[in-house]
Structure formats: structure tokens, C-alpha cells
């Protein structure tokens, strides 16, 4: 199968407008005859489900949590980008487009990114109309700030809880449609299979997490908005339940996986402090607007940070990148922190941390201003670490945060399975090899409110869909597969807990496929992961039964999928011999230690086709063409 990205013809700035006009429409009276399943209720899923119901489709919305409002988009702190140019500082659709392509280290599709930049402004209008309480200035207009790696102020925010407010906006739209009957809501359901009939996605199999019942649901199209796979690393800033299962099951049924090795390690998180630790907590990178990153100039300096004089501190980001300073993109900030700790200059009891210091800002702006900007983040830091960041610098370290890779999709956001659409973080599309701050919320909502409802309509209008119900043999087959897996997991009764396996997998991934990667380490991981997977299926201990609420069983299913997926991630990282964005191959760096791309050989999307567990997957390449943004080495000096 050849990959067809279906990018419309014409100049990049007209593609989306012209394409919308060329799409087939479903007659308003006929829309209610179509049904669409949306899995996931984060920004992308909730907005897509609500919008499609508003258009008249019958929507079924699924989430594994007890309420759609829990989806992990809720935890996004910093903000959402939009090319509104309200501050009159030179922003435009073209600049947002340009920054995003460049920030993604030239590994995203120009056409998709341009569409994203065009739609960005509508998102803000939509959210304000829903009653999202964005930050405002004293004149009553919306306030903007500059955010990770941007030289214009285009980020809209709601204190440090932008994700929460945007998600509650999308959730309220979803609830409105549930109340009207356009959306049927299925909470505490975990998707365990996609059902494909005659080459088209026609339904899903889910487990009811309360009763344990396996349910069949059919539809005319299926949308996955199930988030990223950062928890392959065990410790990440993702929620505990975030998982790869939905996308991985779709991959096993024929959806290609795009660029799985592109993972974002966020530079400002609270450092790891013990084995029992279950997750890492992000401190919004908006903190880098007023915080200065430093380490002691001398290795092994164990003095209290407040006792280290100015002259003995190395503000390494300001020194190395004078024009961007502390605001360099995430991948650079993370890698530089690792370099410092590798050189033995790390701080704190583990030596795996650097300082983020607000002393100068507090002096310049006053504690009140700093509190108004970051109060909730400072409180959170104090609750977790037990130290007061108004009095001494924060200790921070990079942590896995976001995954740019995901299921490969064409311009319509449709995967290589007809009728299977993939939205938000779950797809691979708009961020290339590195996502800029405040772009995830923008992409999730662009996909959900504006792109998918249009392209799915086009699919439904131009596709012949047989009437069918869940008694079809493919549903039965998929259900049997799901049941067999559950029975197997419950029958092993080995010696190790699910978490022990997950922790071991995470360590392998962090050591060998983390912030810096090399051939030797990746090859080692390709030996260790299958061995761990074999042990899992022989020696995991999942207690209880399948016919009741069983959280160990839920976790076991997710970890089983991570154990398969992780291998693909490493294979992708091994094959991509260049460094780009969040993927840093030690073999490919400049003399100054910066990431060195190889555009001649790697300016493509790697889309992997599944061939079986432990079997070498097939690589398909989608060549990336750059007409508007000139390929260049990124420089933030």
C-alpha cells in the first residue's frame, strides 16, 4: 500500500478553504442516519463529539474515567496559541505556521500546519463564547503571553490551568449535546478492539470497567482521540490511566504508526525522588519567562543554592543561546539540562536536577506579581517537594511529557484504515519532531472542533456503507479475542505485579530511548524488551476476576500493550540515524553538540506497518516537501 497524504492542490494558504468547498456534504436531514463513535473525551474527543452532534450525527462518546471531564487535557497548564496578533507584535497566520514547522524541526507536513495556524484564531473565539475565563487585562480584553520558544506573545491562558478551562468548555459543549440526546455517553469503558468490516472501521469492543461486561458498539465511522503513549516510560507527566491501547489495537488491525520515536521530554518537571514514585509533575514552562536556569560552575558543589554567589553560577541557557536565553524550545532546554548533570554539575540529593531561580524576578517585580503569575504552580511545588520556591530556587529536571508520534493520518485525519479517524495527540501529524509550548491544546481543539467534523462528513457522504449490526461475525471474532486476552491475563498468577513490569519497561526506555539515543543502547533495548514481554506473559500476577471492577486487570492490559509498542518505538529510533527535534541520536550532532538533521536521507514520515508480535514491521515513507519554509538548521543562538 502506498501512502497518500491527500494534500489538496493549490497554494498552501488556500488549500483548506478550497478543500472545504470541494468536500461532499451530507444533507441535513440525512445526518441523523449516520452514527460516529468517538473514543476519548479530552480536548480533541470532547470537541469532536459535541460538534458532530450539533451537526446532527448520532454520536457515541467513550471514556475510561468516571466522567469525560477527567481526561488528561485537564492538566495542561501553560496556554493555547493563536495567531490573533492582539498585542500588535508582528504575529500572523504565516508566522505561526512558520514557527511551528521550524519548531518541529522540519518533520511536519506544511499543509497540515498551515491549516492549524489558520484555525487557531477560531478556537479562541469559540472558547470565549462558551464562557472560558481566559486571563484579561484591565481594559477587559484578552491578555497574551510569550511562551516556550516564541518571540511574539500569542499564547492565551487561564492562570496556570488553561487545559482545565478549555477542557471544561469542551466538556460543557459535550454535556449540552448529551442532554439533547445527540450524544450517548459511555463512561468507565475501555476500548479494547476496533472492528473492521469490508476494509472499513465499523465499531469497537469495549470493556465496562464496573461490571466487566464486554460490549459491542457499531457505527459508520470511528474516531480515536485517545492521547499519547508517554507512559511507555512508566514515569511521565501523563495521567496514571493514559495508555497506548486504543491506538495500538488499531495499529495491529492495519493502521500505520507514524514516527513513534518522537517523544517530548519536557524540561521543567519536579525531579524523581524515589522508587515508589508513580508519576512526575510538570511545572509549566511559562515559569521560564521569569525564572533563570542555572547550575553551580563547580562540579559537586553541595552548598545550599542561596549560598552560592552569583559569580559561581552558570546560567548556561543564557550563556549558550543569548537571543532566546531561558526561552529556548523544550528539546534544547531538556538536552542542556542532561548535559549539565552528565558533567556532574547536577544538584539535589540525586544530582539529577538543575535550578530554576526566581530571586531576580521577585526583586524586579515584587513577590505579589510573581505570585499572581505563578502562585498555583509555586504552591504545587511546595506541596510536592516540601520547599518554598519564593525563598530558594526550584529544583527541576526533564520528564517525558508529550508524544509527537501517533497513528499516521492523511490530510483528512483518516488513518490507513478507512473510516478510522485519529485526532489530537493520538495522531502523528502537526508537530513534526518537536512540539512547541501551547501548541497541543491548539491542535487538539482544531482537530476536534473544526477539522474532523468536516472531513468525517465528507467520508460519510462519499462512502457506501452497508447497514449492519453487532451480530456480524467480525464483532464476535473481536469480542472473542478480547475475552481470550483477559482470560489469559487472569490465568497466569505469577510472581510479579503489573507495576513491577511497567517500572522495568520504563527504565529500559528511559535509559536507552530517552533524551539521547545511540545505536548500541537501542540495540540493547531490542533484546531486553522482548525478554521482559515474554516474562510478563509467564510471570505476571493479576488477581480477581474479569466480571467485576478490577483495576489490576485494566493495568495489566495496558502494560501488555506498552510491552509490544515499546519495541516499535525503539525500532523507529534505531532506523532514524539523524537527530531531529526530540529525537537526539548521539551519532548525529554538530561540533557544538547540537542536533544535526540529515534532510537528504530522513526528510520523511516513518509510517510502520504491523506484521506480528516480535516480527520486524514494514517501513513506509511519506516524503516531506517544503515549499514555503526553507529547510535550515534550527538556531536559537
Amino acid at each position, binding site marked *: 500500500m502506498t501512502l497518500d497524504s491527500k494534500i489538496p492542490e493549490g497554494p498552501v494558504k488556500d488549500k483548506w478553504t478550497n478543500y472545504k468547498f470541494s468536500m461532499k456534504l451530507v444533507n441535513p436531514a440525512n445526518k441523523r442516519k449516520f452514527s460516529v463513535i468517538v473514543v476519548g473525551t479530552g480536548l480533541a474527543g470532547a470537541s469532536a463529539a459535541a460538534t458532530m452532534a450539533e451537526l446532527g450525527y448520532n454520536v457515541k462518546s467513550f471514556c475510561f474515567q468516571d466522567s469525560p471531564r477527567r481526561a488528561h487535557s485537564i492538566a495542561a497548564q501553560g496556554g493555547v496559541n493563536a495567531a490573533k496578533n492582539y498585542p500588535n507584535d508582528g504575529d500572523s497566520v504565516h508566522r505561526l505556521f512558520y514557527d511551528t514547522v521550524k519548531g518541529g524541526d522540519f518533520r511536519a507536513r506544511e499543509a497540515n500546519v498551515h491549516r492549524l495556524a489558520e484555525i487557531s484564531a477560531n478556537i479562541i473565539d469559540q472558547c470565549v463564547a462558551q464562557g472560558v475565563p481566559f486571563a484579561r487585562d484591565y481594559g477587559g480584553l484578552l491578555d497574551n503571553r510569550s511562551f516556550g520558544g516564541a518571540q511574539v506573545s500569542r499564547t492565551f491562558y487561564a492562570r496556570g490551568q488553561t487545559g482545565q478551562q478549555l477542557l471544561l468548555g469542551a466538556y*460543557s459543549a459535550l454535556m*449540552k449535546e448529551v442532554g439533547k440526546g445527540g450524544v450517548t455517553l459511555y*463512561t468507565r469503558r475501555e476500548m479494547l478492539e476496533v472492528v473492521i468490516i469490508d476494509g472499513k472501521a465499523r465499531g469497537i469492543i469495549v470493556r465496562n470497567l464496573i461490571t466487566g461486561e464486554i460490549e459491542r458498539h457499531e457505527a459508520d465511522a470511528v474516531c480515536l482521540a485517545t492521547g499519547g503513549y508517554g507512559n511507555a516510560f512508566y514515569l511521565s507527566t501523563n495521567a496514571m490511566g493514559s495508555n497506548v491501547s486504543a491506538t495500538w489495537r488499531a495499529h495491529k488491525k492495519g493502521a500505520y504508526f507514524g514516527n513513534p520515536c518522537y517523544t517530548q521530554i519536557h524540561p521543567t518537571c519536579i525531579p524523581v525522588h524515589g522508587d515508589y514514585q508513580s508519576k512526575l509533575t510538570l511545572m509549566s514552562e511559562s515559569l521560564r519567562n521569569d525564572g533563570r536556569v542555572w547550575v553551580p560552575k563547580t562540579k559537586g558543589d553541595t552548598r545550599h543554592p542561596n549560598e552560592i554567589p552569583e559569580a559561581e553560577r552558570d546560567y548556561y541557557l543564557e550563556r549558550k543561546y543569548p537571543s532566546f536565553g531561558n526561552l529556548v524550545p523544550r528539546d534544547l532546554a531538556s538536552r542542556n539540562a542532561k548535559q549539565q548533570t552528565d558533567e556532574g554539575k547536577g544538584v539535589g540529593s540525586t544530582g539529577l536536577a538543575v535550578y530554576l531561580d526566581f530571586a531576580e524576578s521577585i526583586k524586579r517585580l515584587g513577590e505579589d506579581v510573581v505570585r499572581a503569575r505563578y502562585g498555583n504552580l509555586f504552591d504545587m511545588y511546595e506541596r510536592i517537594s*516540601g520547599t518554598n520556591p519564593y525563598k530558594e530556587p526550584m529544583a527541576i529536571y526533564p520528564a517525558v511529557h508529550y508524544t509527537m508520534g501517533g497513528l499516521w493520518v492523511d490530510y483528512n485525519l483518516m488513518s490507513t484504515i478507512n473510516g478510522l479517524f485519529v485526532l489530537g495527540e493520538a495522531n502523528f501529524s502537526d508537530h513534526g519532531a518537536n512540539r512547541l509550548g501551547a501548541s497541543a491544546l491548539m491542535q487538539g481543539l482544531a482537530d476536534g472542533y473544526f477539522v474532523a467534523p468536516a472531513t468525517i462528513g465528507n467520508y460519510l457522504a462519499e462512502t457506501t456503507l452497508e447497514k449492519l449490526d453487532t451480530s456480524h461475525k467480525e464483532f464476535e471474532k473481536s469480542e472473542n479475542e478480547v475475552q481470550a486476552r483477559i482470560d489469559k491475563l487472569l490465568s497466569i498468577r505469577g510472581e510479579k505485579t503489573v507495576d513491577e513490569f511497567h517500572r522495568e519497561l520504563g527504565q529500559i526506555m528511559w535509559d536507552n530511548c530517552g533524551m539521547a539515543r545511540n545505536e548500541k543502547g537501542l540495540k540493547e533495548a531490542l533484546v531486553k524488551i522482548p525478554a521482559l514481554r515474554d516474562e510478563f506473559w509467564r510471570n505476571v500476577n493479576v488477581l480477581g476476576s474479569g466480571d467485576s471492577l478490577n483495576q489490576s486487570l485494566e493495568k495489566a492490559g495496558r502494560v501488555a500493550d506498552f510491552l509490544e509498542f515499546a519495541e516499535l518505538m525503539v525500532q523507529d529510533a534505531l532506523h532514524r540515524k539523524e537527530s531531529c527535534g526530540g529525537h537526539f541520536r548521539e551519532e548525529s550532532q554538530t561540533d557544538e553538540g547540537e542536533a544535526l538533521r540529515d534532510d537528504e536521507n530522513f526528510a520523511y514520515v516513518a509510517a510502520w506497518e504491523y506484521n506480528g508480535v516480535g516480527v520486524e514491521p514494514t517501513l513506509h515513507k511519506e516524503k516531506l516537501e517544503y515549499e514555503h519554509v526553507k529547510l535550515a538548521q534550527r538556531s536559537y543562538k
Partner: protein
Amino acid sequence: MAGKTLNLTLKVWRQKDANDTGRFEIYRANDIDVNASFLEMIDVVNDQMVKEGKEPIAFDHDCREGVCGMCGAVVNGQPHGIQEETTLCQLHMRKFSTGDTIVVEPFRARAMPVMRDLIVDRSAFDRVIQAGGFVSVRTGGTPDANAIPIPKIDADKAFDAAACIGCAACVAACPNASAMLFVAAKVTQFALLPQGQPERQERVLKMVSQMDTEGFGNCSNEYQCEAACPKGISVANIAVMNRDFLKASLKKG
């Protein structure tokens, strides 16, 4: 970093499903790092229990950053435990001392039945929002975001109300199992914003009506909800809601 450790006794509510009567069971939690969160402490206990062939304690949790609203239990009689404005996932073990006995039980209310151990059914909250906790705008066709200026003070107050995470600690804390703080926070958010005005009266009537239907109790000014709220939502919101409710009811006649 291995911090100081604690040895604790846990009295935990165990209940197989909604039909089971449930009971407290006693567990030891030994060598718990003071830097662990409360939920990480339960993780450690659970891992140990699985090793001993006992089914682990079921509890809801997800983001573990204090914002998703999924976690929560009554710890030593207080929803989310002793620390003010802190969810259970953000409560850290340094707040306890070695030798402590900690009682852990689910949020209890007739409208939120226990499903298993510490997990309760909070779907009533979703239904209250479905009744009117939104602005009826469709996607697309909305005016420019800066078309309607909103005084900063109103936007900030609306944010304070909108910060509710829907965890239901307010219900668990209330002697009447009232959900008024939750409902009032949503009502107030929209009452403060121009976008919320067209449906202001209808919204409050519908949401209050659904709240009653779900079986939540009424407010008798105990202020326990505010004390338990991990996001510091003020009871002043309830006053706003009561005033709006009265106005809307009179107008409706």
C-alpha cells in the same frame, strides 16, 4: 533519595460492589517514605497485598496533579485529608507521623453510591451539568473573542468559580450531602460573564431541579464544603446561586 520513613496502621473501607455491605479492614503500611504522596502510599500497600495474594484496594485516581478531580477519599474524617486546599493525590506523607492510625473511607452520599472500596459513582454531577451547565453556543459563527470586553475583576471571579474540579469532596463533607457548592460554582461562573446572561435564569432553575432529582440534600450553612474544597471554592457562590434561583423562580411565577 531515600527520605525518612514511617510505619502506619491503615483502617480501610472494603466493599466488593454496590450490593455488598462493606467493612473496615486493617493493614500495616511499613517503611513509607515521607516524600511519597498519599496515593503512592496506597500503591505500596497494594503491591504488597498482591504479593500476598490479596486483592488490592480499589480507588479512583488519574492525573495525580490535583486537577482531574478523579481521586478522593475521606481520611481521618476529612475529605482529601487534613491539608487545606489539597487533593488526596497532593497530600504527602510528611504530614503524618510514624505510629499513626489512618482511617480511609469513600466519599459517602445517597446520590453517589459506593461501587467498590473507595470508588463511588459521581455520574450525578455529569447529569447536573447536562441539565444546564453550559452556554448554548454551537461550534463556529462565534464573534471575535475581543468583541465583548469583560472587566478583569469579573473574569477573575469567574475563573475562581470555574476552578472547581468536580471531585465531590463538598458533598462528602456536608452533613446533608448537599451538592450546592458544586452547582453554585458553575452557576456563578456563567452569571459573572456576559456569555452566560441569555440563559442565566433558565440555567439555575434546571440545574437546581436536577440536583434535587439526584437526591442531594439542601444547604444549611455549615460551610463544611468550603473547608473541604481542594480548590478553595467559596460558599459565597451559594449565595449568588440562591439569589439567582429566587429571582428566576419569582419571574417564572
